[in-house]
């Protein structure tokens, strides 16, 4: 294999040799290479196979528009699929693999598809694999595997990613000449500037071109400018950073590849950082993409963009061929041809489609270097499969409808092409800006903007270096001024002036046969979309560019049509016989280039995916080996297994302890709200359904709140701590929502009420001491208030001192047993818990978790909001009529009279017992009246809670049943998911101690 590396020149470090692997072969490159330049230096012509026809493909471009050199980089779990070799910096020991072509890019078994190219036309997959429908899964598997798009790693990504928020006055995207001029001008006013560029160094086109600024070589100007920016404290320079998304309010997302060029990130370095940039003003200086020309077999390896050849020669010191032909319709490519020639390549001819050819500057330059120019000629076809061997050249009159008869062959192994330039309007478009058609330069340029952004340089259709620098500087000053900075007079730049001839558009190249019958003229290389495909779509009735895109897959690949879309629009315009401006562009969406999942996720993975809230006693629970249940963001102990116990045995033991002796539970996750103010009663009367004002100070009450739709929203115990002070509890999951709900009514509807609401959920920890011995336990640890029934009756609250700690003591019960809830400052809670556990040993105090909590309350028929209710349940359905005051209005009251809520056949809350006395049906099981009715069998309800009850000796269940309140004593059938049926007796939901005597003792 020959080396195509030049002896001198370029920005590669010849002293630093990197070895790398491409498809198993070991190759060498230099520091400063991209994978693409290193492959070209090694004369690797074929780098992939095309998507549909599996044609061999080579490197076409040198940037983000590359459609072919799509690689799988890295190995094992750090591998990344679908990276563009043109934008992948080489590092030592890189492992790269072509993502397409099986078994290899040089011998691809599916290449046989190419023989049937006429069959595989636009819409082929839609037309062929639609029927029979059931076979699509089969087809899909084959199509996907033969298409091939790289592979995702099997394990977790081993690298770190980060997010970073940033703010600036002026964000400049792109550090070519116009972006640099803008950044310098803005920074000199004192504005905070962020300058991002996707390349590893600033300079953009200056890195590839041989020109002067202010009479010194452009590289000197570049060095000086970059130094000034780097030394400026208010400027943040970010290389290897792609601004990929422009969102609302001048918010731009950019990804910085901090360590992708190093292979493995060293130490704590993050691999990629997602920058979330809030900019007051944005200058877009993204440059332009060169367009290919659509001649026959224009996808053959060795056909490259002219500017890419210039970049490989000047920047990477690689000569991508020995003998080249340039095919162009504009002046810019002449300089690429000259660069190739100057570096030692042979330039057989410049084929210029324009009758009058190029302007004086370009022509003189070419002639001075001895390059023959053929005006009014076309390259109609190329010969060579895995490498271009010949270009077929013909004279042309300028009439596109003509077919070309006589061609001559010119030998070459490199065909440079240039169809003109398309400004990169992506971010401008994402920001909501319109694009307008420039009739002179035949390209879409940014039009009106919706946000605070402006485009400059080639990205705005400003083509001369002078214009780029001047307009860039102007934009820097204007944007800084818009941010309130004082601006000095503008700087002027001096650059060589070129005399140009205008471009003449050539969307497709006439061939020896009609465009529908000639060899493939590719528009989108990645998706194998050809001129004929777009024309076929039009014949089949497609008109909108968006529909044609979807039918032909034009612009659908990882390059998102950066290279080929514009030619496709030109071909479509011709076929529709409308001006191209009327065809318009497809929608530009983020991301401009693909972004890794890692960058998107940032640090929000693993243990910090979401906050985990733990109670003050959490460590104790963990030490006991309690499995945890996730409740909202909280972790709660599920049960406390003793040696060898499973969940059933543990829960049975915990339940019996609560019923017979003493049990203890951490109830700290309950939501808690402090309510104070002159109008506390007035507010709570409107929120809760019961008569809040009738509660005496020191009393507790169970309360429910309804939405205005009359359906149950949340419940909890509330306590009246003073004339104007209440303490509310909410469900664990409802805490934040209830506080927001109360604040909303208070602030927006009843601002005249003087009430203050404060969340005390974190301040207070709550310990439930449950069971017949609970009173004895509290007495034993020392309580300064009497705990006897006559002094401290059920449903009352007292401030107390317990074991020396200040506490709020509630005599409430969610188990039906004698019980107390201890509210204690969270920093004391662990000490209090341990004190109670120690003192409780003589009563065999038993800690219990959420499972036992649920069983105990279910035995009493207490609902859990969100488990037994689902947002469609009214208090009447729950038989909570006793809670509904007739003396006042409250939220949702009027809705209880709505026709739908007074229906008697609503699903109502009842209890169930399995007739066999032993089956615990699954929660969620549907209930039917008659399982033998034909499918779909009408369902009449469902089970919401279901447990084995140790103290009752049989399973119990709660659920919602149509007309359930009237069906107590009847039987229904639970249809289990395994197809079996269980007969269920409908009973009262209160299974245990129906007169509620035990909690009152």
């Amino acid at each position, binding site marked *: 294999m020959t080396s195509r590396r030049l002896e001198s020149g370029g920005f590669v470090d010849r002293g630093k040799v990197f070895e790398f692997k491409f498809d198993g072969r070991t190759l060498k490159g230099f520091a400063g290479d991209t994978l693409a330049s290193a492959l070209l230096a090694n004369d690797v012509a074929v780098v992939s196979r095309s998507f549909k026809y599996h044609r061999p493909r080579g490197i076409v471009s040198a940037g983000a528009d590359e459609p072919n050199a799509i690689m799988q980089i890295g190995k094992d779990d750090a591998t990344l699929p679908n990276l563009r070799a043109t934008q992948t910096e080489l590092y030592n020991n890189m492992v790269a693999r072509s993502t397409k072509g099986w078994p290899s890019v040089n011998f691809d078994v599916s290449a046989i598809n190419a023989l049937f190219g006429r069959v595989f036309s636009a819409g082929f997959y839609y037309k062929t694999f639609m029927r029979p429908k059931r076979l699509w899964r089969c087809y899909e598997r084959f199509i996907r595997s033969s298409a091939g798009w790289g592979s995702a790693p099997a394990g977790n990504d081993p690298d770190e990613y980060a997010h970073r928020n940033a703010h600036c006055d002026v964000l400049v995207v792109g550090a070519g000449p116009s972006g640099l001029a803008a950044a310098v001008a803005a920074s000199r006013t004192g504005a905070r500037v962020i300058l991002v560029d996707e390349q590893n160094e600033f300079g953009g086109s200056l890195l590839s071109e041989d020109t002067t600024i202010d009479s010194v070589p452009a590289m000197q100007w570049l060095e000086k400018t970059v130094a000034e920016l780097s030394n400026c404290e208010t400027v943040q320079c970010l290389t290897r950073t792609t601004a990929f998304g422009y969102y609302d309010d001048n918010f731009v997302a950019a990804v910085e590849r901090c360590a992708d060029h190093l292979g493995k990130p060293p130490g704590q370095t993050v691999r990629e950082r997602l920058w979330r940039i809030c900019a007051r003003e944005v200058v877009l200086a993204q440059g332009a993409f060169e367009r290919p020309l659509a001649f026959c077999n224009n996808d053959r390896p060795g056909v490259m963009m002219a500017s890419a050849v210039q970049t490989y020669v000047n920047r990477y010191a690689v000569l991508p061929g020995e003998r080249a032909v340039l095919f162009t319709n504009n002046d810019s490519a002449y300089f690429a041809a000259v660069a190739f020639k100057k570096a030692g390549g042979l330039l057989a001819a410049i084929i210029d489609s324009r009758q009058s050819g190029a302007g004086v500057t370009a022509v003189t330059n070419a002639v001075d270097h001895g390059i023959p120019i053929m005006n009014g000629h076309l390259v109609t076809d190329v010969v060579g499969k895995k490498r271009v061997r010949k270009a077929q050249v013909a004279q042309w009159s300028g009439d596109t409808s003509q077919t070309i008869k006589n061609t001559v062959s010119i030998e070459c192994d490199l065909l440079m092409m240039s169809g003109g330039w398309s400004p990169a309007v992506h971010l401008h478009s994402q920001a909501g800006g319109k694009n307008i058609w420039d009739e002179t330069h035949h390209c879409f340029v940014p039009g009106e903007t919706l946000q605070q952004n402006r485009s400059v340089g080639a990205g705005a259709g400003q083509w001369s270096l002078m214009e780029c620098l001047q307009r860039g500087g102007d934009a820097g000053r204007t944007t800084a001024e818009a941010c309130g900075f004082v601006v000095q007079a503008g700087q002027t730049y001096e650059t060589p002036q070129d005399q140009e001839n205008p471009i003449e558009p050539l969307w497709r190249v006439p061939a020896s046969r009609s465009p529908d019958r000639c060899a493939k003229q590719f528009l989108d290389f990645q998706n194998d979309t050809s001129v004929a495909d777009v024309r076929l779509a039009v014949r089949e009735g497609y008109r909108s560019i968006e529909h044609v895109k979807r039918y032909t897959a034009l612009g659908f690949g990882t390059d998102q049509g950066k290279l080929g879309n514009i030619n496709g629009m030109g071909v479509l315009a011709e076929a529709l016989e409308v001006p191209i401006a009327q065809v318009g562009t497809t929608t530009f969406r983020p991301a401009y280039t693909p972004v890794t999942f890692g960058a998107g996720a940032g*640090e929000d993975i693993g243990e910090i995916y979401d906050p985990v809230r733990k109670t003050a006693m959490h460590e104790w629970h963990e030490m006991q080996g309690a499995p945890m249940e996730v409740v909202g963001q909280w972790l709660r102990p599920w049960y406390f297994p003793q040696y060898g116990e499973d969940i059933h045995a543990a829960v049975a033991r915990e339940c019996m302890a609560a019923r017979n002796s003493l049990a203890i539970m951490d109830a700290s996750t309950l939501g808690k709200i402090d309510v104070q103010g002159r109008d506390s009663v007035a507010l709570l009367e409107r929120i809760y359904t019961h008569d809040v004002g009738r509660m005496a100070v020191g009393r507790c009450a169970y309360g429910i709140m309804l939405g205005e739709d009359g359906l149950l929203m949340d419940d909890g115990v509330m306590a009246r701590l003073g004339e104007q002070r209440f303490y509310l509890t909410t469900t664990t999951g409802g805490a934040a929502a209830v506080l927001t709900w109360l604040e909303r009514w208070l602030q927006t509807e009843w601002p005249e009420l003087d009430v203050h609401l404060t969340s005390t959920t974190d301040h207070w920890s709550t310990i439930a001491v449950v069971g017949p011995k609970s009173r004895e336990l509290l007495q034993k640890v020392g309580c300064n208030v009497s705990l006897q029934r006559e002094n401290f009756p059920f449903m009352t609250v007292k401030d107390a001192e317990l074991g020396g700690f200040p506490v709020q003591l509630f005599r409430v019960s969610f188990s039906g047993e004698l019980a107390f809830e201890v509210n204690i400052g*969270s920093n004391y809670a662990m000490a209090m818990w341990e004190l109670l556990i120690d003192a409780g040993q003589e009563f065999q105090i038993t800690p219990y978790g959420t499972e036992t909590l649920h069983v105990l309350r279910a035995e009493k028929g207490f609902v859990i909001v969100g488990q037994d209710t689902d947002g469609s349940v009214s208090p009447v359905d729950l038989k909570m009529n006793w809670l509904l005051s007739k003396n006042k209005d409250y939220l949702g009251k009027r809705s209880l009279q709505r026709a739908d809520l007074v229906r008697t056949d609503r699903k109502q809350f009842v209890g169930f017992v399995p007739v066999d006395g032993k089956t615990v049906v699954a929660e969620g099981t549907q209930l039917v009246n008659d399982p033998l009715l034909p499918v779909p069998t009408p369902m009449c309800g469902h089970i919401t809670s279901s447990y084995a009850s140790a103290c009752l000796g049989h399973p119990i269940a709660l659920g919602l049943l149509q007309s359930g309140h009237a069906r107590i004593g009847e039987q229904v059938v639970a249809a289990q998911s395994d197809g079996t049926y269980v007969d269920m007796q409908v009973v009262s939901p209160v299974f245990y101690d129906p007169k509620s005597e035990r909690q009152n003792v």
Partner: protein
Amino acid sequence: MSDSLKRHHCLEPFSEDSATIGSSASAEPAIRVTFDGHREFYNLRGDPADAAFTDAVKSFTGQSIPDKANTLSYRECTTCWLGPDEWLVVYPSFEAGRFEKFSTELDSTDATAVDVSHGYIVLCLSGDSALDLLAKGCTLDLHLSSFNVGDCVQTGIARTAAIIANIAEGDHYEVIVRRTFAEYLAIWMRHAGAEFGIGFD
């Protein structure tokens, strides 16, 4: 009463296994975090136009309540603006009976106070990269041009809400966070700070 009682702040378990991460053992990490779990916090509500209320607070704390949004006042205690009628009063250490006295002071007014001392913890951040760390999780512009000594903001850090108080010159910031979100935030800081070098005391 409870001065001698055993208190446990919520980051004690975290402190036990924290170390310096991301910089060599000898070098001072670019971010240092200390936990202060035993301050006193009072949630204060009242009408700032009510002189009886503002005078009562001033006579007790020795300083005016900040009436400008997102600012704080500090001397013996720090008073952070939380909303147009809401403040968080933070005393540096616990003193038995102080809250009761404060509460009594407000009795003759329409204002109210709630002791929420056990509900918050302070993570004190310092070091050259302290702001870089906050910028990773906070969408606000904490640049000198918009965030100075005497400023405080309630905002989101990563996936939790917090108050960031700027109470001293140089790279010192206090992050006040709810007790049950503190461990999450500390773990987040340990991860997010690793690239700069972060140490916990």
